[in-house]
């Protein structure tokens, strides 16, 4: 039986591209998002329309994947929101919503797949963080904090599961060509950021997909856990 993955934020951007690639590579994919209209029908695709903030969304998705594929090899959490808001204008509602989607949903999804991975004695989890977790951004305190929390969550999860053969890593993209930044930036601003990047462009979803594929590959990244793979084109090295 082939490999099986649960992907959140699967309806658009990086998550969608990852699903398409995994399906093309023969994986069974359980896609989770509020809207999955962007994913074409495919024999290996399980659609789980739902809100990642609700615990039952992840537990239902994990149960469906397990029932269909008999195993869960990988969890990749791409679901995230980013509404730029000046610090003094931040309210509890936006703060809570940002953490619920960007941070807590990752915990819920991990909790949903861990029993199966523990029973198998293997599995790989990739949580999406962001370069902003370390660099911060004007109007992005809530987002940066939520993504920083993902790093701490992932490392502790890596320590707790290493002995069971489960690896947990994060990917931190730099600015990437998806719908998400377009909510906060103009096309001209995107082009300026590309110009200022050492490699002369912003990230493509395929760059992030390749990073995930490396990290979830049980042969290639078998001694890599607790790490943050920063796919940035060399922006703001530290």
């Amino acid at each position, binding site marked *: 039986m082939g490999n099986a993955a649960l992907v959140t934020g699967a309806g658009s951007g990086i998550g969608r591209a990852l699903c398409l690639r995994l399906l093309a590579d023969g994986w069974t994919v359980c896609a989770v998002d509020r809207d999955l209209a962007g994913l074409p029908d495919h024999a290996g695709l399980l659609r789980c329309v739902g809100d990642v903030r609700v615990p039952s969304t992840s537990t239902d998705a994990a149960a469906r994947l397990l029932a269909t594929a008999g195993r869960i090899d990988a969890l990749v959490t791409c679901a995230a929101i980013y509404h730029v808001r000046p610090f003094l204008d931040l309210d509890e509602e936006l703060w809570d919503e940002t953490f619920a989607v960007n941070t807590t949903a990752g915990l819920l999804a991990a909790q949903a797949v861990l029993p199966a991975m523990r029973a198998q004695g293997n599995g790989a989890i990739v949580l999406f963080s962001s370069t902003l977790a370390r660099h911060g951004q004007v109007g992005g305190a809530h987002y940066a904090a939520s993504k920083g929390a993902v790093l701490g969550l992932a*490392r502790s999860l*890596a*320590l707790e599961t*290493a*002995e069971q053969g489960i690896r947990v890593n994060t990917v931190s993209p*730099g600015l990437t060509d998806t719908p998400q930044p377009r909510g906060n930036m103009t096309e001209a601003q995107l082009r300026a950021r590309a110009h200022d990047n*050492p*490699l*002369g*462009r912003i*990230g*493509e979803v395929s*760059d992030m997909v*390749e*990073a995930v*594929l*490396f990290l979830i590959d049980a*042969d*290639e*990244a*078998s*001694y*890599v*856990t*607790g*790490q*943050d*793979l*920063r*796919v*940035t*084109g*060399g922006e703001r*090295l530290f």
Partner: protein
Amino acid sequence: MAARDIALITGGASGIGAATAIRLARRMAVVIADRDLPAAERLAASIKQDGGNAFAIEMDVASGTSVRQAVARISQDIGPVRHLFSNAGINIRQPVEDITPPDWAAMMNTHVRGGFLVAQAVLARMLADRRGGIVFTSSDFAVVGMARGAAYAAAKTALYSLAKSLALECAPFGVRVNAIGPGPIDTPLLRNRPEAEWREATDRFARIVPMRRLGSADEVAACVDFLLSDRASFITGQLLHPNGGQVMW
């Protein structure tokens, strides 16, 4: 076969270097550079026997002349170096008060000056062709300290610093530069310790490494292979750790 890219691997005859040569030989020609030429020749012969394209060359990265002559010979006899895995290293473990100036110099010369010299020797062609990639072998100890390993840690940190600056300088040419930071890996560097010390070390790693085991040289090679491939085309200036979770940052 003639159109195949060429990878140069320093410290290529044993341990992580050898494992990487074997792995990269699946998709390119490999030049195994080492101070120990017979060992490099034995590995090249074994790779060729398995259907790969491999060459051996004597190189002492502590000598600028040796590096430049070797690279000139490679360019002339085999072709331009497309990928560099700069991996030659030594390990001396001693308390800070016992480090002699020659010990310190040997550590810095092999890891940092050696990495600089080899990169400089192959870089002009990569930049001119706007094609190529470099990976340096740094260490977990580039980001954390090491008792009885101050010189080693300083050298590995310096190497990572070199990699970052080189990454920025090369990025406009599309040439990517990264480093790997292996944790405890089962290599001759570790195994060549006295039996009791080796046993003590493996027991300790089984206790302190979250994955409860040493890594294999091939697990490091897989990371080098990834970083040198087009799959990592937006990754530069980074330190990738195959370390079983020993260091996270």
